[in-house]
């Protein structure tokens, strides 16, 4: 049952990603990306990462996708559609390299995992996935990355204003 759910979600994620690449209309591509984000959220849930599941839906499928749609609307789409799909040697090389990279990232999974084995039982996963555990970790050992995250958000805000505000 779990395995079937996983393959269903993973399949939709791949289909959505293909849709992002192949759709001619950018808004359709964005919808494909939503499908990918939502099915990734399901995959997270199957790994007992409940909090990440919710975040994935709220922040990625919700807020980030909204931003992407806005950015698409900022651009003049009609002109973009005209200039595309022409054969170029660069594209062939690009596709070849991408294929090579795809094979390269599959190689690691031909060997067995060398990390700490045996710790990830069902009950341990359930504990680790909980918000309480995440909270203890985030506000305990991981406090430095947590505070850096706020600096990162601030930089994003100031950077966006610097680049996009009409009158600085």
């Amino acid at each position, binding site marked *: 049952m779990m395995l079937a759910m996983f393959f269903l979600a993973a399949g939709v994620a791949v289909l959505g990603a293909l849709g992002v690449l192949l759709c001619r209309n950018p808004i359709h591509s964005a919808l494909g990306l939503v499908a990918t984000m939502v099915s990734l959220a399901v995959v997270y849930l199957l790994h007992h990462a409940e909090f990440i599941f919710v975040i994935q839906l709220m922040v990625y499928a919700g807020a980030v996708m909204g931003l992407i749609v806005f950015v698409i609307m900022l651009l003049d789409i009609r002109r973009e559609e005209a200039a595309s799909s022409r054969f170029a040697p660069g594209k062939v090389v690009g596709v070849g390299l991408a294929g090579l990279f795809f094979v390269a990232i599959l190689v690691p999974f031909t060997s067995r995992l060398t990390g700490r084995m045996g710790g990830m039982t069902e009950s341990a996963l359930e504990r680790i996935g909980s918000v309480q555990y995440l909270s203890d970790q985030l506000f305990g050992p991981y406090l430095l990355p947590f505070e850096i995250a706020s600096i990162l958000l*601030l930089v*994003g*805000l100031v950077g966006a204003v610097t680049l996009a505000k009409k009158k600085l």
Partner: protein
Amino acid sequence: MLQNYIPILILFLLAAGFGLGVVVISMFLGPRRPDPSKLSTYECGMEVEPGARQRFDVKYYLVFMAFLVFDVEVVFMYPWAVRFQKLGLFGFVEMLIFLLILLVGYVYIWRKGVLEWE
């Protein structure tokens, strides 16, 4: 644990089924006799100019970017609230520093007039 999510799955299937079902049913049952005035965007004789596909103002981007930043900020507050009692004063100070850094960003965009719709 995952059993808890079965109601959500059922709700999701219901919602998707309803959305799809309505479209499919009306496709089969509804009579279709299209004519130019019915196919126009609004059936009141006005042509829509210049169409929906025009460039939006970059102001939208700025407002959305600000929303996104503070959205992520709130996401961090959720696990903190769940463990508020146990984290105690230390966790409170941590969150205070986090909020303070972003508060400066908020004051900055407020004073800069990013939130105003010129």
